């Protein structure tokens, strides 16, 4: 087995062996869905039953998919990567004959896939229960790969943002910034079409939309394969960026003491 595939498998196993952590996440996810159902129902009702073409049903399926994709990644991932660089843990990982960032991302992706399976299943059931069937069943089918690709783009970005710790010895500021980018221009809070026009245009030009908006848009009843291609394109760029940041960082690593 390829070492990166073995890393993915290890991450997957590690997550399913921590059912407590997964249960807390799913519980939190269920609370978000309940709150969002109440909020968006009120907002859509106040706007005559539709918001920029999103009905109550499509909006809540959007929320389900966008949240599922983002919650697949560990919430403080960028900060943790920064801490591991600063503390010298990454230095020890460099003593393996494989790519440090490649192995880290494959392990993270294994963890994320375990979480995605659980949260996608539970989230879809709850959303169905709260607002009824999805606007399009083929769209729900296409949402699954979109959620996985969104998660992969998020993990690659986390490594690119966390990698600043090679220079700054810390990624707390970077994590704060990244979190906000996924939240708003990423479409985690609301669909990008609901943002003011200039912000909407900027958001569509950034990679963060592929992490939450694209899965949400597909789940809301737009099973457009071009959206997956858009994700794949940005994923390739983000993987390249994470690889470049780590390669440059490893060359200039400064770790004092044991």
């Amino acid at each position: 087995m390829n070492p990166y595939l073995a890393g993915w498998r290890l991450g997957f196993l590690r997550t399913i062996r921590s059912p407590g952590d997964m249960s807390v996440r799913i519980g939190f996810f269920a609370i978000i869905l309940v709150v969002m159902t109440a909020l968006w129902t009120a907002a859509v009702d106040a706007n005559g039953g539709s918001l920029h073409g999103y009905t109550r049903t499509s909006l809540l399926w959007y929320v389900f998919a966008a949240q599922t994709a983002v919650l697949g990644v560990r919430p403080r991932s960028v900060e943790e990567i920064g801490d591991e660089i600063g503390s010298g843990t990454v230095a020890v990982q460099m003593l393996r004959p494989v790519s440090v960032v490649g192995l880290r991302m494959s392990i993270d992706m294994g963890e994320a896939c375990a979480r995605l399976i659980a949260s996608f299943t539970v989230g879809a059931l709850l959303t169905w229960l709260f607002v009824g069937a999805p606007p399009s069943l083929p769209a729900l089918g296409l949402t699954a790969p979109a959620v996985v690709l969104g998660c992969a783009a998020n993990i690659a970005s986390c490594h690119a943002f966390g990698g600043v710790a090679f220079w700054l010895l810390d990624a707390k500021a970077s994590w704060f910034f990244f979190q906000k980018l996924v939240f708003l221009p990423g479409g985690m809070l609301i669909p990008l079409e609901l943002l003011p026009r200039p912000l909407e245009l900027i958001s569509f030009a950034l990679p963060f939309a592929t992490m939450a908006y694209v899965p949400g848009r597909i789940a809301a009843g737009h099973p457009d394969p071009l959206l997956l291609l858009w994700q794949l394109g940005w994923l390739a760029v983000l993987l390249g960026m994470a690889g470049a940041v780590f390669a440059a960082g490893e060359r200039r690593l400064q770790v004092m003491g044991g």
Partner: protein
Amino acid sequence: MIAIEARELRKTFPVRRGEPVEAVAGISFAVEAGERLAYIGPNGAGKSTSIKMLTGILHPTSGDAAVLGIVPWKKRRELAARIGTLFGQRSQLWYQLTPRQTFGLLGRIYRIPADEERRRLARLGELLDATQLFDQPVRGLSLGQRMRCELVASMLHAPEVLFLDEPTIGLDLVAKARFRDLIVRINEEQGTTILLTSHDVSDIEQVARRVIVINHGRLIYDDRVSVMRRALLGTKMLDVRFEQPPASVEVEGARLVKLSGAGAKLVVDTGRRPIRSVLDDLLDRYDVVDISVADPPLEEIVSHIYARPV
């Protein structure tokens, strides 16, 4: 055959708004294949920085080095396939999983065929008496048990050189003794070159044949451990607790350095009188409740090295 060679190796760390810190200040030495070398020094001496350069994690500010003929920082991944590392303060095992699952990942990383991996795990498990630990979650292992599994992880790909950075830190006395014995067995049975850093003097005496002492980033001593033992390890520290506070403690061959209530600290010159004889005398003449014997601290050895006539 030379396994490790350092030539004028130097590492300076830049410090924001301050003078750069020179962690390693031009160190040169060579280690033969199959040697057991203790690379020691007080905290902050530059031991770990040296190891990080020799394993390719850090680029030196100047100087040169080769490990198994490879310049570490130029071909780090190529070298990583042929060396093993164990850092006492950094675990390479995943806490939520069993050691065997981590070994499985390491087997794939080092591209060890499955049959060969099973054979090596059985061999290492037997050698390190760790087979029964392989299927327990790492979070449930004691530090001593975990360190044995860490050593298996470091040895799984049959490295030619093993770098051990403070491997006995935090272990109790029994676990330390056992761990030292395991390192010696690995060296003798597999011919692995050992470079061990420690600030525990007992690690040096029981594991290494040769010792290099560094201080403030400079090499200050390089000789056989037997020579060092005669020249610099001629004393033992005794920490004694008596039933009643004695007025004084007088034992031939021992010098009282501190008397505080019922407790006393003595230094024994083992060249003048064997430690066993001093202990017998002490136990015969005084009502001793507790006693412990320790090596002199590394800082004392370093000051002895500086005090030697040139």
